[in-house]
């Protein structure tokens, strides 16, 4: 109810006219070269990095001008174009068309004809070189862009022991090539669009035709096209615009830095959204359990993967519930604690001034501060923080009698368990919910924890990610998909794709097991 009201308010407050200032109605290119150049420099506001180079060395050819932005184009290629323009030999006597001449001298890559000033400007801003010729009604753009880009490195946020070590970079074409390299099939469909009236960010949507659900694909496409914003600087912008439930703490799109994870997702029927300028790529639709899976689960042996998944599910529960369980049991249900432990706990708590709830809140907040400081501080100060964090706030706080030793153990274990969840966005959701549960545990004990978990569970059951139930295949129950959920069966047994993402093209591999040679 509240969500709907807020959504309405959001819709209303969104301005009707998006901020289009740079170019208005498309303008025809002026006839004379001089005039066109003047128009362009005027639109660019005499920016010093906007370069116009006029070439008039040849008498048999019309005068041309090359426009580009310094730093966005490859200077070597540019030089070569100039050189070949000045030295190109005309084969026949008659005057050749400028277009065929350009085709001859321009490097590989698409050459497109531009008819309006607006399209020239956007081509220049994309890093292309635009060639205007005197007396021509159209301009030509050549792709000689050379952006400074980071080389492919190991992803910093999702590391694996076994598996490919390459990660996405900030460059969208590199990222797409990393996916293409893994899926050499013509069925991989790629669609690009431009979002953001100021940033003009390139956004690419890709899926495998025949595996991805068509209704999901068209839904994602429609939601992407309906975005009206002036800027997209990271895929997080896109995520918040197209997710199903804006107010839910749970993410309904998963982000990853790993091309192999994306390839795996595409093969299971997910749709990938790449955004230029960020190594984080979005996958949708996604179900809850995928946030606890890692792409490494499929590379390691199945028994180890199953065990590790068990560990991850356990740490999910720990991370969500341990502090609140500690509060509830030590405040309301002491009879559950074994007697010897109870005595030592009571002895520890004797000296501490605060009730368990306050103590837990204090320690959890302290830890969150240390964690945030660890992310933001300059790298050189790192060791100092760890010393202060571990020694002063841990050991010294216990010795000073501010907190009990058991509480420090609980908080640290919770924190470490939180790091075992592979997806940061899911781990972050739990971090927030944990505080609510702690509050409920402090007021109603175990009953309060239950009263907190049931609404979360109901919310998760009702949540959908682009039409796919968030908790599938548990609710609704699909036995076939349980083979790759809490456990991971060996590959020969995973004959079908997960049913939640798609209903057709289910078979993944042959029904025959590979023959083992008889002795």
């Amino acid at each position, binding site marked *: *109810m509240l969500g709907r009201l807020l959504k309405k308010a959001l819709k209303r407050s969104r301005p009707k006219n998006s901020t289009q200032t740079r170019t208005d109605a498309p303008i025809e290119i002026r006839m004379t070269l001089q005039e066109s150049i003047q128009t362009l420099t005027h639109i660019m506001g005499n920016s010093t990095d906007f370069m116009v180079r006029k070439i008039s060395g040849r008498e048999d050819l019309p005068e041309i001008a090359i426009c580009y932005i310094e730093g966005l184009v490859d200077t070597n290629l540019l030089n070569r174009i100039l050189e070949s323009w000045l030295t190109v030999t005309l084969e026949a006597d008659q005057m050749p068309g400028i277009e065929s001449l350009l085709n001859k001298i321009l490097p590989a890559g698409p050459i497109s004809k531009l008819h309006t000033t607006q399209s020239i400007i956007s081509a220049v801003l994309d890093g292309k070189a635009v060639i205007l010729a005197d007396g021509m009604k159209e301009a030509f753009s050549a792709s000689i862009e050379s952006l400074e880009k980071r080389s492919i490195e190991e992803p910093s946020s999702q590391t694996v022991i076994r598996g490919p070590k390459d990660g996405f970079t900030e460059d969208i074409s590199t990222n797409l090539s990393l996916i293409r390299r893994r899926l050499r099939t013509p069925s991989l469909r790629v669609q690009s669009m431009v979002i953001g009236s100021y940033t003009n960010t390139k956004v690419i949507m890709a899926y495998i035709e025949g595996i991805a*659900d068509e*209704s999901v694909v068209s839904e994602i496409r429609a939601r992407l096209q309906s975005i009206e914003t002036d800027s997209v600087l990271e895929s997080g912008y896109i995520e918040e615009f197209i997710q199903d439930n804006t107010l839910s703490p749970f993410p309904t799109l998963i982000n990853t830095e790993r091309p192999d994870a994306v390839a795996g997702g595409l093969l299971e029927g997910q749709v990938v959204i790449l955004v230029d300028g960020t190594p984080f790529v979005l996958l949708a639709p996604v179900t809850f359990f995928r946030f606890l899976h890692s792409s490494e689960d499929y590379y390691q042996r199945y028994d180890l993967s199953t065990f590790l998944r068990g560990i991850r599910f356990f740490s999910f529960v720990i991370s969500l519930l341990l502090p609140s369980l500690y509060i509830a049991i030590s405040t*309301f*249900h002491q*009879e*559950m604690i*074994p*007697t010897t*432990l109870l005595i030592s706990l009571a002895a520890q708590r004797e000296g501490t001034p605060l009730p368990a709830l306050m103590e837990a809140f204090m320690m959890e907040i302290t830890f969150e501060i240390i964690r945030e400081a660890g992310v933001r501080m300059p790298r050189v100060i790192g060791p100092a923080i760890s010393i202060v964090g571990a020694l002063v706030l841990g050991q010294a706080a216990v010795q000073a009698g501010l907190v009990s030793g058991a509480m420090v153990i609980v908080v640290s274990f919770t924190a470490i368990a939180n790091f075992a969840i592979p997806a940061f966005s899911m781990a972050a959701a739990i971090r927030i919910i944990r505080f609510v549960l702690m509050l409920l545990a402090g007021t*109603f*004990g*175990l*009953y*309060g924890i*239950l*009263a907190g978990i*049931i*609404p979360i*569970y*109901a919310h998760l*059951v*009702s949540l959908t990610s682009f*039409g*796919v*139930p968030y*908790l*599938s295949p*548990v*609710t*609704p*129950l699909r*036995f076939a998909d349980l083979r790759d959920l809490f456990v991971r069966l060996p590959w020969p047994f995973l004959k079908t794709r997960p049913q*939640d993402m798609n*209903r057709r093209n289910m078979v993944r591999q042959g029904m025959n097991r590979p023959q083992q040679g008889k002795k």
Partner: protein
Amino acid sequence: MEMKQSIRVTDLVCFLAVFEVGSTTLFFLGAEAKRDAWIAMGIAALIGLLLLAMYLLIYRSNPGLDLYGLCRKYFGKIIGSAVNLSFAGYFAYEASRNLRDLGELTLLTLLDRTPLMFIMLTAIIVVANTVRYGPKVVIWMCAGFLPIIILSYFTIYTLLVSSGLIQFELMLPILEEGFRPAWTAAVPEIVSFPFGQTLLFLLFFPLVKKKEKLSRSVIITYVITAICLIMINQINILVLGPTQAANSTLPLLQVVQLIDIAEAFERFDVLFVIVLVLGLGTKMAAFFMGAAMGLHKITGLSYKMWTVVVAVVIFALAFISPNYPHHIWLGIKVVVTYVTPIFQIALPLILVLVIWIRSMWTKQRQ
């Protein structure tokens, strides 16, 4: 897309199992039959099976209509609406009983110093919040609860057997005083609660999209659940003996308290209460939903609005009894004998008759 969103037989069957277990294990059923409680429960389960078969028969006569739709169709507008209203009231009352049970259970075991009103208020808010999502979400949620419930009862059974607390000789002699005590214990008390409550499922059968195998799956689930319930109920006798089991407020909880592993884990009962609360909550949500769906159908006003109204009504109804013994007496003795048979047996029987007579009529006309 539709396929992914529909309720399937598997989901409904999980719901049925959780619903049947629900609050049943909270009480010791068939106390009058003493050590033959299992026979009494068996009789009741068989009669309940007949009732379930009747409900399935009603459902199959018009697979697209739920209980309210059927009454409206066969009893006419005025009588049908009156019957529907009484059904909705009955469901709301059952939900309020569950709410009171939940509150009293929590008060006795988890929160002895919190006022009953706050506990029940929390419970009704949480349940109303769940019911607000509609039947699909409630039914789907049970797929998550069922493994927890099965696992905990299985653990309890294993621990009881392995720690030697179960004494099978407490069951003997069988039928010491003849068949009569078992029969009087079973009819109508145990038939009405819990087995006859499957009546509510006349509302949920039509929600299932793929109807093949529905009747078979429902009956198989019912039989398995009934057998499990009889086994769990008999634990009370096997561990506590007939007298203590009959006199205990929460017998099964007392049994669980006896478990002791390595002198470290002695109090499983607190965790077990959580399982009981889950069952109670699901049952309450089911009846709550039944009442809200009914009022939505009768009046045509929005389901979400009725959720709020019914929540208030249930909360108020839960305070009918001044104390817990009165609540138990009212529920296990009075209502079960004089009220529930009307809704679970009499009205459905009349409905079957009317449906049958109508179909005969139309055949004769042709």
